[in-house]
């Protein structure tokens, strides 16, 4: 997986997106991402994360501005089969009569002939992708018969089988247990090291510094974008989430019996919290209890 025909890049240039009903979900939004990046897309529900994905995939045309993928207009880039997408769980009909294996095989359609008859390579890529996400033994399950974490892994496997270069993941950690979350993060890092570009909508503030080198903060427009270390500050998060976010700060006096004046901040949007100790940003130690993983 060394030579890519296209250097995956993403440029969102001053876009405004308005739905048919007249609702403007995003306005004047700009940011730019390079190859070999994992970028977190952070914002409250309704801030326009899914809408941004839809405009990157050309589903909705911005009424102003443009999206450029690898230097090309959206439609031209899509034809090259370099863009991949992991849908939000609510957007999938889990009763649909497809097996795990069928879903992953969809990732190969763009590589197949007109009749979509899989060849040896397609089958091998599907098997490999399933192996990578640890879903081999579930390949014959109907997709509704999986746990939340397994469902996500199936769709990630589809993107892996596709060999997508620009991968959009819409809330891949929602309803996922911590173990699966870590596994997915490892996979994403691996894919970043292969030179791909990933844009990940997520509410898990705590894990963002762990694996996202870039962050875009969104609330109907881009509030801040850039390297996570620069963007991911309490002040910016405050701005992004307003009153929605739960934010606890324990002052130095409450925390220590010594003279250490640093305070501890815990910021959470109901998922893994972000813990800030003093001025530096620390990873959370999985403070939340494991989410349900039933099957």
């Amino acid at each position, binding site marked *: 997986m060394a030579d890519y025909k296209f250097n995956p890049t993403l440029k969102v240039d001053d876009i405004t997106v308005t739905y048919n009903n007249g609702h403007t979900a995003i306005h004047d939004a700009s940011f730019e991402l390079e190859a070999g990046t994992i970028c977190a897309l952070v914002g409250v529900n309704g801030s326009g994360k899914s809408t941004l994905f839809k405009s990157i995939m050309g589903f909705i045309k911005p009424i102003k501005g443009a999206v450029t993928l690898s230097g090309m207009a959206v439609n031209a880039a899509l034809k*090259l*089969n370099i863009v991949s*997408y992991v849908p939000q769980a609510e957007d999938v009909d889990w009763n649909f*009569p497809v097996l795990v294996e069928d879903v992953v095989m969809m990732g190969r*359609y*763009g590589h197949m002939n007109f009749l979509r008859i899989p060849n040896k390579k397609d089958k091998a890529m599907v098997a490999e992708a399933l192996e990578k996400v640890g879903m081999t033994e579930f390949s014959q399950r109907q997709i509704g018969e999986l746990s939340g974490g397994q469902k996500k892994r199936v769709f990630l496997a589809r993107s892996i089988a596709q060999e997508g270069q620009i991968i959009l993941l819409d809330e891949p950690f929602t309803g996922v247990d911590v173990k699966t979350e870590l596994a997915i993060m490892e996979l994403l890092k691996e894919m970043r090291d292969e030179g791909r570009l990933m844009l990940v909508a997520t509410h898990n503030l705590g894990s963002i510094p762990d694996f996202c080198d870039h962050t875009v903060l969104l609330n109907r427009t881009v509030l801040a974008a850039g390297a996570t270390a620069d963007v991911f500050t309490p002040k910016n998060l405050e701005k992004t989430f307003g009153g929605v976010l739960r934010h606890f700060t324990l002052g130095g006096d409450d925390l220590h019996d010594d003279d250490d004046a640093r305070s501890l901040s815990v910021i959470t949007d109901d998922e893994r919290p972000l813990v800030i100790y003093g001025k530096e940003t620390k990873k959370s130690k999985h403070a939340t209890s494991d989410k349900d993983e039933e099957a």
Partner: protein
Amino acid sequence: MMAEFFEYLIEPMQYAFMQRALLMAVLVGLVCAIFSCFLVLKGWSLMGDAVSHAVLPGIVIAYILAIPLSIGAFVAGLFCAVATGYVKENSRLKEDSIMGIIFSGMFALGLVIYLKVQPEIHLDHILFGNILGVQAADLWETGIICIGTLLLIILRRHDLLLYCFDQAYARAIGLPVKLIHYTLLVMLSLTIVASLKAVGVILVIAMLIAPGAIAYLLSNRFSSMLIIASSVAVGSSIAGVFISFYLDADTGATIILTQTIIFIITFLFAPKSGILRNKTAI
């Protein structure tokens, strides 16, 4: 005993009109069944109902213009589907409301023109079909449409299915989703046109939903859904033709009743989703 049974099967087939009816019922049942799988999965049942009602003015106008009625029906059906899409993109109304207005409006227009023009075709035959009156030419027409539609669906089923399952992904990997969308609408209109002679404008929607709905309850893979839907439909068509002969009942309606009964049985007893099964399992 066995001989008696065969007697029952052979007797109706001594009539040429019954042979034609049987062939027609099987053809229409098959193509509707295959298509019904997509309709059920895409959630387009109401769209099917709308398009089937909307063909009425097309038939009447085609009669006035002296062109083949099926062409008029096809154009009107497609117009309804496309107009629905257009209005939806340009208004804040939900699709079902738009469809309700468009198809009932077109149906009403058809009725008004029909009564003004008083064509020789019976309104009953347009509304409920006239499978026993099917001629060889009708069979050819339906046969060609059915085979064309079936071939297209079977060859392109993967893309059609991906479109129904995950439109956003289909788009992301560069499939021509607009083209796929209109292909489905064209095939829906064609399927309805092909079925009109057999079951008519009002009842065709049953053939376009029931087999897919039954198969949906019974399968966890698309390939098995297609097979179950086709088997149910072909079986119901054959059973309906014979039963209606002996009961002296309307053939189209008997076929649809047979499918409905199978649906009810499936609903109650399906291995995974049947409500009675689940009750006893607790």
